[in-house]
């Protein structure tokens, strides 16, 4: 018998709203199945179950907002006897084990009823927040009924007309529409403040000659249809994954004063949300994926991140983070580590630069790679070997 609890989807999460159950009492579930959806500051996350079993009882109903650690459902292991107690008994007399595991088991607070998911452009969302427009009342005229900026402006103009006798919307509802961006900001603020408070960062930087890798990739992409083309970012992800295999100390966590390197390499890739903020979901087992598989994984991840449809494991599993700001034109990234991870690799824009080799000056496409390392866990020497390994793998790009 196990409790399926509201998971912590990041160091900064305190509570979540149960949005939807994907299972009902009596359903068989397997480890990894998505059984519920939870709304957090980072959007709606699909929650996976960690063991096989049967859903015996659902304890929290859709719409309820509960703190992290609250039991959401009871999962009975296959073959285990059904419990004789009734639902009421279960709720009013928690076992000692339960008390221990969830000391401040709080009463679920009634949360606002979940509205239909609103399709809206980020720009329109920002406008609506500024103008305090209730999005549930706006008719979208964009693709699939998406709300665009013009729709919001029209709604704002209408709202100005005297309609004083209409009762105010409950404030939570307005906050929900406007709150997403604010929520992300808060989540980032909490994690980054903790990082800067607790983690003694060290920074290393190296320039990498990308001419071989880019020439090779260009030749490869020429043979491919538009849909099968690979972006340089994918080479960087794979090179980092392989370099972590060479220098495993940077892949993992610092928890309760102990460095815990991880065997599996799950790379958190920073994806910016166009309306502001970013999310760094994990690409699982990046070292074991081919470039094509990585490209596909990244494509899928970007779409789901921007649509707010990530899975719980993607929110929590990253063992290192990559920040790639090359598209915007910066040359060097000095990263802030995402706790409890112990390293962050940054990549800037690939630019043509003078390059001296064997006493000759030439012009090469050059990438600046940086490492922010947690000095409690590793030293500059380790970090230097890591950056060197990235360089080595990029020179040997055919083997990526």
């Amino acid at each position, binding site marked *: 018998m196990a409790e399926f609890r509201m998971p912590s989807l990041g160091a900064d999460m305190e509570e979540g709203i149960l949005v939807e159950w994907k299972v009902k009492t009596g359903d068989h579930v397997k480890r990894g199945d998505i059984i519920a959806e939870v709304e957090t500051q980072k959007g709606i996350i699909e929650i996976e179950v960690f063991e096989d079993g049967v859903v015996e009882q659902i304890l929290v109903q859709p719409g309820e907002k509960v703190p992290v650690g609250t039991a959401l459902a009871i999962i009975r292991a296959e073959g285990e006897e059904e419990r004789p107690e009734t639902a009421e008994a279960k709720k009013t007399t928690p076992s000692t084990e339960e008390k221990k595991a969830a000391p401040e088991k709080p009463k679920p607070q009634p949360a606002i009823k979940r509205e239909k998911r609103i399709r809206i*452009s980020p720009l*329109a969302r920002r406008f609506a927040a500024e103008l305090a427009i209730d999005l549930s009342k706006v008719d979208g005229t964009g693709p699939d009924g998406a709300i665009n900026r013009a729709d919001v402006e029209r709604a704002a103009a209408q709202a100005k007309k005297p309609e004083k006798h209409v009762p105010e919307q409950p404030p939570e509802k307005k906050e929900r529409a406007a709150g997403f961006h604010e929520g992300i900001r808060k989540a980032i603020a909490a994690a980054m403040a903790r990082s800067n408070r607790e983690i003694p960062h060290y920074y290393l930087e190296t320039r990498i000659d990308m001419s071989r890798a880019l020439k090779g990739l260009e030749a490869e992409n020429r043979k491919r249809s538009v849909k099968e*083309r690979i972006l340089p970012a994918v080479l960087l992800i794979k090179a980092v994954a392989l370099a972590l295999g060479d220098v495993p100390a940077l892949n993992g966590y610092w928890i309760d004063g102990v460095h815990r390197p991880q065997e599996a390499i799950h790379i958190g890739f920073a994806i910016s949300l166009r309306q502001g903020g970013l999310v760094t979901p994990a690409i699982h087992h990046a070292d074991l994926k081919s470039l094509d598989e990585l490209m596909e994984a990244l494509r899928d991840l*970007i779409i789901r991140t921007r649509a707010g449809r990530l899975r719980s494991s993607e929110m929590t599993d990253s063992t290192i983070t990559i920040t790639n700001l090359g*598209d915007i034109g910066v040359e060097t990234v000095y990263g802030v580590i995402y706790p409890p991870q112990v390293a962050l690799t940054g990549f800037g824009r690939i630019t043509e630069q003078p390059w001296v080799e064997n006493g000759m000056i030439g012009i090469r496409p050059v990438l600046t790679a940086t490492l922010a390392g947690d000095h409690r866990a590793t030293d500059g020497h380790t970090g230097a070997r890591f950056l060197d390994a990235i360089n080595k793998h990029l020179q040997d790009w055919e083997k990526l």
Partner: protein
Amino acid sequence: MNEEQIRKTIVDVLGQIAPEADFDELSPDDNIQKTLDIDSFDFLNFIIGLNDKLGVDIPESDYGQLATPAKIISYISAHVE
């Protein structure tokens, strides 16, 4: 295919990638990646979308010719059958 049809297709494809994009508000010489905050993945999706709808196969080496609305329209006009 005339310029207006091409323009409409471009707007449709861009609308899928960046729903807030308003192609008409872009001036013809604005850099679309910078103005619309489109990253390299979005841009690749844009190229894929054009390929789907118009059948133009745009080689990577030509991406530089697709920086602004004016350039995109003239490139597509020249390459679409």
